[in-house]
């Protein structure tokens, strides 16, 4: 009887692990709860915050949360609003990467082409390396690493490839 219970428990664990592996947006229920709590507290803070830099980070985290819970409609609106209020910087590039991924998933070819023009609108020179790397940790705790190549941009999220954009 004990053996049967052990086999059933192992099978359940394997199945749940497999499901999580197959799902690219797999977040444990405890992780989602934690993000939700952060999201609520960030929304409260947003109305009170006066520091421009912190506001920028909060707004980005809120939009990021919508994407995380697969609310692509609100995520797109949030990232588009975010872009309107900000000057070009790293957050704008990340927002464009999110919008690109949403448009790509929805099969909106024209929007992806327009976003590419925005994403590749900066000129730079690489003298010593093949790429330039920039890292960023969001208020939801996500670790981003952006690799700038001359002919592509790779974005990693928590060590995994989030999006690769080629012209």
């Amino acid at each position, binding site marked *: 009887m004990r053996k049967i219970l052990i086999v059933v428990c192992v099978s359940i664990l394997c199945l749940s692990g497999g499901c999580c592996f197959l799902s690219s947006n797999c977040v444990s229920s405890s992780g989602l709860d934690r993000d939700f709590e952060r999201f609520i507290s960030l929304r409260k803070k947003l109305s009170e915050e006066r520091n421009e830099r912190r506001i920028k980070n909060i707004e980005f985290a809120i939009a990021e949360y919508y994407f995380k819970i697969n609310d692509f409609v609100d995520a797109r609106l949030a990232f588009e609003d975010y872009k309107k209020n900000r000057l070009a910087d790293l957050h704008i590039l990340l927002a464009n990467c999110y919008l690109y991924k949403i448009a790509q998933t929805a099969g909106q070819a024209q929007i992806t082409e327009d976003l590419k023009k925005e994403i590749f609108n900066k000129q730079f*020179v690489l003298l010593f390396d093949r790429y330039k790397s920039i890292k960023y940790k969001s208020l939801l705790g996500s670790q981003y690493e952006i690799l700038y190549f*001359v002919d592509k941009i790779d974005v990693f999220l928590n060590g995994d490839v989030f999006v690769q954009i080629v012209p």
Partner: protein
Amino acid sequence: MSRLSLRDCARFLLPFGLCFLVVAPVYPLTSFLSRIILNQVNVSAGKTLQVSGLIFSRPGKMILQEVFLEFPENRIFLADRGFVYYALSDLWKGDLVIRKAVMKNGHIDRWKKEIVQNIQQSLIAKQGIHQKRDEKVFDVPEYQNICFQNFAVKLPDLPGSKDAGILLLDFCLTASNSYGKCQGQVRYRGPIAEKSFAQKIFIQGVNFLADVEFLSGDLLINHADFSYKQFVFRGTGMIRDLAYQPNISIKFHSDPVRLDQMANLKQLSPQGGEISLTGELIGNLERIDFQSELSMPSVELNIDKDLLKLDNLTGRFRYQLPGNTLVVEQLSGIVDDETQFNLRGNVINIFSPRLDLRCDIFQRPDKRERSRKAKLILAAFFKGRWGKDGFLGQVDIVHDYSKDKQYRCRMKDLLFFPGRSSKSWDVKTHGVFFEELKREEKSSKVVQGFEFKTADLKFHTKGKTTWLDDFSMPGYGGVVLAKGAINFRNGLSRYFLQLNFENLDLKNVKLFDPLTCDISGIVSGSIEIKNQDVSVLRGTIAAQNFSLKNFAPLDKVSEFIGIDSLREVQGKNVIIDFELTDQKTLISRLDLDGDHVQLRSRFDVDQRPWLDGVVALSLPRASLEQSKIFKTLLSIARERDQLLDFVVHVSGFSTSLRTELIESNFRDKLKEQIGVKVQRYIEQKVNQAVEGP
């Protein structure tokens, strides 16, 4: 002589004697009568009608000599002879009823500004058009009528032409109270244009029939038909104040004419094609406007076994009598479903045409995209004279390359004339200008231009193919030669043009995107333009003893190194191999051997425009040492080589290029000597200069 024989003789002479006794008083009688009638006519008519002689030629017929008829405002009518037919039965009743009158060799004069003159019968006889005279006498017995034969109207002289055009009319006027009917034929003999282009033509068999009514000075045209060969025009309208200030307003339409019934189009074997015309004739005798609209739904023509389809041919024209100006408001059609043309402008004095025309050629969108607008490919402007020797004038051809860029070829003093064989033509031009124009809001600005003094072109056509047999255009110490062909088949234009230019000594020539630069030197090369399934422009340009400036890659290098001397490069050779398609521009080779720089590169640009390429640069150490930073870096790297090589990968949208240094011994040596922080610092400084991330 015996009594018997005398009696026989008397019997023989008796009829003659009786005849003499009867006839002898007739001549004085008729002569007397005619004088009485003549005097009566002249006296009763006063200045209105005068006849110099009247002869009773036979019972029922009178001959009037030198008939003079005067209309208001001294307008006159003259006729050499008039024949008046009357019925003897009416005479017995005491009435002179004219059944028919025929006026011969008449003319009218002082009829407003028209110059109308008599043409002598001898002249008409020489021209051989009197032979059918008798057939043209119309007999409309139910009304009194007057007929005119060989009524000649001399048209106003054409400037420079010896002969004037003559309208010869055979017509009958039938009148009954206010109602009138006019029926007859018109012939025309004379030139259709002045000296250089004039060719005498003879048109006969223009029939006309008109039912008219006079209403208090106005002529109401109930119905008027004109026909010439298979062309029939039907009209209705009014001429107001006919006697004093005639004001014409006639609307007309033509019966549809099938092109396959037209003799001069038989060799084209037209299939389908019904052409019809509607229009209006308005104005007075001094200024007549002739407005018309033409339409033809569809026709297929066979030109040397090639099928040419012409659809939706429509036109709007206006002809103005003063100046003989034909205003082409619009003449458009679709050729082979794909190409659309639109012609508009003026033809001043159509008898000796001075053209001022514009012809737009459009490429129609694909069948699946018919909702889109047609794209303008070429606009051609013609200004000049069309004469016997061909066209002489100025031709501009403008090609819209992009929204803000145009190319224009202007040919001054262009003479276009038929060649030695049929369907071949020669073009000679004095003054050819090739210009690149930048479009601005209201006008275009010339960015650069090339001027050649002469150009000779020979070409011939067969079916829908035009062969450019020979083209030569000397200038700039060299020559430009070309050969090619253009063919329209299955709705697509396929063309091939081989252009060679040798030893052109050019100054500050601006090359095209993405090779935007100013180049001077002795330029040679060849360009091949081909359009079969896709359009391709490929070629090679080589320049010797060149000077190059405003070339973005060199400007970038110059900015990066901090040496201004690289902005303008002089050297022995530059060679560019390129291929342009609708999708992509490929510079497969750009080799430049300058005095201070050597460059080998290859890159392509797509429509967006995204550029991707590799550039290999060789710079002398001495050049790099002109920059303080590089002098320091070279000493840090302990670089001793006199020539430093760099291989760079360039990628990005043309306005925001990203550069990666792929290979450089100098970079590798430097990397060994400095730490990562210093590397970052150097890179940061460079990127600050180019606004990096």
